[in-house]
C-alpha cells in the first residue's frame, strides 16, 4: 500500500481546538487500561487490607474494651468506614497526579507532544484532572461496594458518602497537581510527600480515633487536612454524628475552596512549563 | 603478515564461538591483537562485536574454541584478567548517584587500590579527561561527551595494558567525537593497546591500525583500513539519485559504465577509479539525476561489497 498524502486537508482546525481536555483524558485512560490490574489492586486492595486489619482486627480489641458500646455509639468498623473511604479517594487521585503527571513533563515529555497539536496547556491540565478524578471515582465506587458487604455503611448514605469522598479527592488532587507541576525533577519528592504529608494525614485526621482525643496542640493537624473535613462530613451523613452549627457548611466550603485555589495555581504553571 | 611474527599477541582467539541457546552470536572466529596496536571490530548491530568484547572481559564464557588474554584463561582467571583490562562499556554505565571524582575513586577501590595512591591518580585522570572543573558534579549532570570521557578515565584507573571500548563515539556530536579521538590517540602513544568496536566507518579509518569486519558472527575480512579499501572497492564512488520509482530502471541503462554497480533503495552507486569522468559521461548521455556526488571509497563500500548490505539498515 503506498502512502497517499494531501497536505493540509485532514484536520478541521475548529474541531481540533474543542474538547481538548477530553481527548487528553481519553488517551490517558487508554494508557491506564494497560495497567488495569495494578490500578485495581493497589487503589483498592490497600484500603481493604486496612478495613480488615484495623476495622475488624483492631476493632475487635476496641469493641471488647468498650463493652460493645463502640465509639460514638457505633461499632468500630462503622466508625472507621467513612475515613477509609475518603482516604481511598485521596489515594486514587494521588496515584494519577504524581508520577504519571511528572512523566508527562519530565521523562517521556508527552505533554509537550500533546501541546504541539491543537490542545492547549489548560486543556492538558483539565485532562489530567479528569483522569485523576475518574481513577478516584473508580476505586471509591468499588470500595463502597465492599463497605456495604461488610455492613460498614448503611445503604442510604452511599451517594452522600461518594460525594464527600470525591470532594476531598478533588481538593487534594488540585493541590498536589499544583505541586507536581512545580517539580523539575524527581529527587524523591514524592517519597518525602508520601511520608511527611500523606502518612501523617492518614494517621492524624481523626481517621482511627476521634480527633478530639489528640492533645489540643496537635489538633490543628486535622483541621488543615482535607481528609478530616471529609471524614466529619462522612460520619455525619453515614450514622448521624452530630456536627456543631454551621460546621457542615465549613467542611464543604473548605474542600471546595481547596480545589478551586489549587487549580488557580495549576493552570499558569502548566502554561509556563509547556511554553518554555 | 610477516611482521606479526615478531610482535607479541596480547589477545589470541581461535575458533572462538558463543551460542545463546540456538542463536550463534559468534561463530568460530580467529584473530590476534598485538601489543600497542589499535584494533577494531567493525560491523552492524548484532554482528557479534559486543559478545566478543564480553568474552575478552571474561564476564561472558565462551561456548567453544580458544581464547587467551595475556596468556591467561578467562574461564577461571576472570578477576586476574580484568585487573589488566580497562573497560569502557557501551552507554557508559556511570554511577549516576556519585560525583565525578567519586566515580573514579570507587572504581579504583573495586580493584583494591589504596586510597592514597588513588588520590593522585584520580587528579591525573581528571586532567587527562578534561574534567577537572567538573569533579564535584554528579555524573548524571554531565554532557554526553563528558560522560564518555569520564567512562574512559574510569577504565584507566587501574593503569590497564589493554583498553576495551564498545562503540566509543556512538551518540556523540562531531565535536565531541574529535575530542575523544584525540584522547584515544594519546593513550596509544603511551603504549596502551586499544580494542574497539564500532559501526562507524570513519571512526575505524581514523583510529584503527587493523580491523576485522564482522557480520552474523563471522569475520568477513581483516587488514588495515587502506588495505581493505584497496582490496574490496575502487578508488572512487559516484552516487546518483533519480527518484524512488526511477532508480531501478536507470540502473539497468547504466550497466557496463563502471567496474561495479550497486542498486540501493534510494540511490545507485557506481564504483570506478575516475569518478568525475564517469559522472560527466553519464550526464552527457542525457540522464538527469536529482542529485549526484563523487566521493572517495570508504569502509562502508567494503562492507557493502562483502555482505551485499549497508551497515545501517
Amino acid at each position, binding site marked *: 500500500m503506498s502512502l497517499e498524502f494531501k497536505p493540509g486537508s485532514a484536520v478541521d482546525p475548529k474541531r481540533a481546538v474543542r474538547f481538548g481536555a477530553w481527548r487528553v483524558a481519553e488517551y490517558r485512560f487508554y494508557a491506564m487500561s494497560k495497567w488495569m490490574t*495494578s490500578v485495581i489492586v*493497589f487503589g483498592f*486492595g*490497600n484500603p481493604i*487490607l*486496612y478495613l480488615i*486489619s*484495623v476495622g475488624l*482486627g*483492631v476493632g475487635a*480489641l*476496641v469493641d471488647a*474494651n468498650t463493652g460493645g458500646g463502640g465509639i460514638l455509639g457505633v461499632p*468500630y468498623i462503622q466508625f472507621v468506614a467513612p475515613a477509609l473511604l475518603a482516604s481511598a479517594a485521596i489515594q486514587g487521585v494521588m496515584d494519577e497526579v504524581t508520577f504519571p503527571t511528572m512523566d508527562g513533563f519530565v521523562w517521556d515529555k508527552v505533554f509537550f507532544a500533546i501541546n504541539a497539536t491543537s490542545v492547549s496547556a489548560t486543556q492538558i491540565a483539565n485532562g489530567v484532572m479528569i483522569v485523576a478524578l475518574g481513577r478516584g471515582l473508580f476505586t471509591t465506587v468499588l470500595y463502597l461496594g465492599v463497605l456495604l458487604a461488610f455492613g460498614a455503611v448503611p445503604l442510604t448514605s452511599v451517594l452522600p458518602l461518594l460525594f464527600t469522598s470525591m470532594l476531598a479527592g478533588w481538593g487534594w488532587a488540585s493541590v498536589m497537581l499544583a505541586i507536581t507541576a512545580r517539580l523539575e525533577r524527581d*529527587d*524523591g519528592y514524592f*517519597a*518525602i510527600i508520601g*511520608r*511527611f504529608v500523606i502518612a*501523617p494525614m492518614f*494517621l*492524624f485526621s481523626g481517621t*482511627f*480515633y476521634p480527633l478530639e*482525643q*489528640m492533645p489540643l496542640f496537635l489538633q490543628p493537624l486535622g483541621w488543615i487536612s482535607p481528609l478530616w473535613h471529609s471524614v466529619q462530613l462522612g460520619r455525619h451523613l453515614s450514622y448521624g454524628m452530630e456536627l456543631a452549627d454551621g460546621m457542615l457548611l465549613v467542611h464543604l466550603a473548605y474542600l471546595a475552596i481547596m480545589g478551586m485555589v489549587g487549580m488557580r495555581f495549576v493552570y499558569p504553571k502548566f502554561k509556563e512549563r509547556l511554553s518554555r | 603478515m610477516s611482521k606479526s611474527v615478531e610482535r607479541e599477541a596480547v589477545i589470541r582467539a581461535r575458533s572462538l564461538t558463543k551460542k545463546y541457546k540456538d542463536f550463534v552470536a559468534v561463530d568460530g572466529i580467529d584473530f590476534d591483537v598485538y601489543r600497542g596496536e589499535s584494533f577494531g571490530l567493525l560491523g552492524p548491530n548484532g554482528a557479534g562485536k559486543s559478545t566478543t568484547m564480553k568474552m575478552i*572481559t571474561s*564476564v*561472558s*564464557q565462551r561456548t567453544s574454541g580458544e581464547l587467551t588474554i595475556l596468556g591467561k584463561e578467562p574461564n*577461571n*582467571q*576472570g*578477576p*586476574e584478567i*580484568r*585487573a*589488566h583490562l580497562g*573497560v569502557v*562499556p557501551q552507554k557508559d*554505565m556511570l*554511577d549516576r*548517584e*556519585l560525583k565525578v571524582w567519586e566515580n573514579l575513586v*570507587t*572504581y579504583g*577501590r*573495586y*580493584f*583494591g*587500590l*589504596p586510597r592514597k595512591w588513588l588520590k593522585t591518580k584520580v587528579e591525573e585522570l581528571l586532567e*587527562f579527561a578534561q574534567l577537572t572543573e567538573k569533579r564535584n558534579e554528579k555524573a548524571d549532570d554531565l554532557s554526553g561527551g563528558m560522560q564518555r570521557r569520564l567512562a574512559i578515565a574510569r577504565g584507566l584507573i*587501574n*593503569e*590497564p595494558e589493554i583498553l576495551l571500548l564498545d562503540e566509543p563515539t556512538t551518540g556523540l556530536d562531531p565535536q565531541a567525537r574529535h575530542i575523544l579521538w584525540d584522547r584515544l590517540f594519546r593513550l596509544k602513544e*603511551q*603504549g*596502551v593497546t586499544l580494542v574497539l568496536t564500532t559501526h562507524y566507518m570513519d571512526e575505524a579509518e581514523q583510529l584503527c591500525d587493523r580491523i576485522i569486519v564482522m557480520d552474523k558472527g563471522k569475520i568477513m575480512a581483516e587488514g588495515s583500513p587502506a588495505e581493505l579499501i584497496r582490496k574490496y572497492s575502487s578508488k572512487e564512488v559516484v552516487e546518483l539519485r533519480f527518484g524512488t520509482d526511477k532508480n531501478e530502471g536507470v540502473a539497468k541503462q547504466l550497466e557496463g559504465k563502471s567496474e561495479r554497480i550497486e542498486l540501493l533503495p534510494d540511490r545507485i552507486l557506481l564504483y570506478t577509479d575516475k569518478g568525475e569522468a564517469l559522472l560527466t559521461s553519464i550526464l552527457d548521455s542525457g540522464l538527469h539525476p536529482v542529485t549526484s556526488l563523487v566521493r572517495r571509497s570508504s569502509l562502508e563500500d567494503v562492507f557493502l561489497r562483502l555482505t551485499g548490505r549497508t551497515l545501517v539498515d
Partner: protein
Amino acid sequence: MITQALITQAVAIAEKRAKRPGASVYSGRAITMIERSLYAAKSSNWLIIISGFVEPVLYLMAFGFGIGQLIGDIQDGSGNPVSYAAYIAPALLATSAMNGALYDATWNVFFKMHFSKVYQVMLSSSLGPMDVALGEISWALIRGATYSVGFMAIAWPLGLVTSAWGLLAIPAATLIAFGFASIGMAITSYMKNFQQMNWVNFFLLPMFLFSGTFFPVSVYPEWIQVIVKALPLCQGVDLVRSLMLGIIDISVLGHIAYFVVMIVLGLSFTTVRLKALFMR
C-alpha cells in the same frame, strides 16, 4: 602523565588472591561496595533517609497512643497485661528494620540492575558477584539496623521496654534486617519490570498488617495462624516482642534459626543470579 608500570598494583592485588578457592566469584572486597554506598548516601536526599525513621514513630503515636486509648491494656504472650503501645512497639521496631533493609535491597537494587547498570561495571573490575551481593546486602542491613536503633531511642524513654532483655532487641533487629535484605535482593534479581516490583510491595502491606503487629494472631482460625506464623515478619515480631517484654523461652532460638536460614538462602541465590545475569 598516564604512566604504565610494568606490573600495576591492580594486577598484583588480583594475582595475590587468584589461588584462593572461590576467587572467580569473591575477591574479598565487599567493603568497597559499602564505601560506594556511603558516597551515594552523602549526596542523596537526607529527608528520605530520615523519613524511614519517622514513619514507625508516627504509627506508634497514632496507633499506640491514639487507638490505645480506646483499647486499654491487652494481654501479652504470657498472660500479663501490657499497654497497647507497649504491645505494638516491638512490632514496629521489627517492621522498621524490615522496611529499612528492603528499601535498599529491592527498589535501589532493581534500579541499579535495570537502569544505571552499575553492577555490570562493577563486575568488569576485579570484583566478583559475591562481593556485590554481600556489599549491597550489608549496606541494606546497616540501614535497617540504624532505623531500629532510632526507634529504640524513642520507645525506651516512653517506657515501652519492660525488660532488660530489651537491649537485645537491637541485635535482633539487625538479624531481621539481614534476613530481609538477603531475601529481598534475591527476589529482586528475578524481577523484570516495575509492575512486578509493585507486587513485592503489595505482599508487604498485608504482612505488615496481619503479622501480629496490631492485634494478636490468636484471633485467626487455627489454619490461618499456621500460615501467618510462617511469615518472616511474624517471626521477627515475635522475636523482638519476646525480648522487649521479657518473655524468654526456647521459641526465641527457633526465630533466630529461621532468620539464619533466610540469610544463607538469600545470599547464595543472589550470587548465583548475579552471575547468571551479568556473566553469561
